[in-house]
């Protein structure tokens, strides 16, 4: 399993990733789209966001994500093909 940006988040990441991978292959892909692993994700994400702030890339992230790439006309074209 891959590492987290914050070494202190590795354990939380592992727990979350395991939960997600199971949900994705056993539920989501089979049509059950009800989310699971939400609690684990919240803990893990809080940890990652702290690490992101410490590394001072939080502003860069906000800037990079200010437009939703999939609602622009750009992505509509990409989705067709």
């Amino acid at each position, binding site marked *: 399993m891959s590492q*987290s*940006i914050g070494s202190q988040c590795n354990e939380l990441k592992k727990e979350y990733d395991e939960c997600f991978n199971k949900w994705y292959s056993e539920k*989501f892909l089979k*049509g059950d789209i009800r989310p699971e692993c939400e609690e684990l*994700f919240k803990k893990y994400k809080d940890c*990652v966001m702290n690490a992101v702030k410490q590394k001072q890339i939080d502003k860069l992230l906000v800037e990079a994500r200010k437009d939703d790439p*999939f609602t622009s006309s750009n*992505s509509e074209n990409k989705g067709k093909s």
Partner: protein
Amino acid sequence: MVKFFQHTFKYEYNWESVTLAFWLRYPNPFASHVESVDVIDRYVDPNTGVLRTTRLILKRGVLPKWGKGLIKNPEAYIIEESMVNPKNKTMITLTKNVTHARVMQVEEWQTYQVDLNNREFTQVKTEARIISNFGWGLTDHVELFGIKKFADNTVKSRKGMSHVLEMIREKRGRGFLTV
């Protein structure tokens, strides 16, 4: 100044396995430059049933000689946005660098769909746009480097995906996975 790159590729695995491999593709022996991968946002759109994910990837870059003077810190943060629609079996991903974007911005779109000739295979269309506004006569250099690097990386990432797909196949054989 912009350069474009496009190609399609076929994985001999079903769409479900390929999209799972997309999540599991790091670490793999062909991506030793990838330091970390984190999910920073993820939800299922209740109206469409589409899974939306944003991941932050940290790569330790390998720079050409002329680049070493330009970029002090050779690490690059990459944002990966994706949407998975399980109904029409389409996964669309967008990857772009958030650091060093002044030197070079690389945007890569990938569309994963069931192969129309063989429902057990998956077709991936890759489209990339490489933009550099650097000036000082370096722009062409930067963009050509970008294209070459991009083509090399595409081969590597395909090998990485294939490696992970092989692992998924083995696990499935042993009953660990049901995709």
